[in-house]
């Protein structure tokens, strides 16, 4: 019984952490390409395009590049929190399932044991 719970825990944790890492790395890779493209075009335009004689617009797009870069880092924080949330909830789900089985086997009526963990923080 405890081996089953442990295996389920490891499998749930692996699944959620793997999916979370994959999503975050995909987003970061895509953002990296887009930010590199933005930086390249700003530099080109400053040298020989419309930004050469337009300081205001040049500073606006530089600021935009900075904002997009900082936002990517903040999105990684948010998506990491989301991954932690999913991993925690997966573990709680498996543990709660084990507790229900044990308590149910000990004679506690099923209607007293909700199917999912009852406390939401």
């Amino acid at each position, binding site marked *: 019984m405890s081996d089953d719970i442990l295996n389920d825990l490891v499998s749930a944790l692996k699944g959620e952490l793997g999916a979370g890492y994959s*999503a975050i790395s995909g*987003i970061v890779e*895509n*953002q990296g390409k*887009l*930010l590199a*493209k*933005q930086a390249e*075009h*700003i530099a*080109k*335009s400053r040298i020989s*395009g*419309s*930004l050469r004689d337009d300081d205001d*617009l040049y500073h*606006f*797009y530089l600021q*935009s*590049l900075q*904002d*997009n870069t900082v*936002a*990517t*880092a*903040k*999105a990684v*924080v*948010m*998506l990491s*929190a*989301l991954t*932690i*949330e*999913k991993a*925690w*909830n997966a*573990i*709680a*789900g498996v*543990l*709660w399932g*084990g*507790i229900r089985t044990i308590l149910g086997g000990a004679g506690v009526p099923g209607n007293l044991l909700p199917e*999912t*963990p*009852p*406390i*939401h*923080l």
Partner: protein
Amino acid sequence: MVPAILKRTVLLWVFVLAACTIHLAPSYDPALVDGLNKAHTETLTLFAGLETASGPETFPAYQERYASVIGQFEALRQRAEAREIPPLAGRLVKLKAVEKLCGSGADATECVNVTPKRLENIVAGLRVLRDRHRTRGLASDSVELARDAYDPAIHLALSVENALKR
């Protein structure tokens, strides 16, 4: 031999852990995602149209379309900003380690709700493009520069919002 008190404490903690689910990011909002997809399509269509526009005399033909996308993104920004941030997420960004990256106050909130600030930047970029078009006309690389600023912001907003679907 493990003392009985330790065993009971561990069991109690396992029970408490098992009984609690946590919420560290806002809930998925299908209306927000639909709105983002619609506004995104309309904006790409506007950019495609602007590739052949140039002088300020061409601005009136696009005025309504600028207003439409700016209005949509502003409404979506307000919607994203007004949604509830889970209390635990609010506490998470106040941790010292996270604060270094996320800053404090409104900046920190961006770490648990990325989209509003991205949409604010999109609106600012579209306004700049519109005002340049109206007053000076568009240079050959104006649309490309505007899209370069727009693309990372909309992609990040869409990716994050879709990731919230648990």
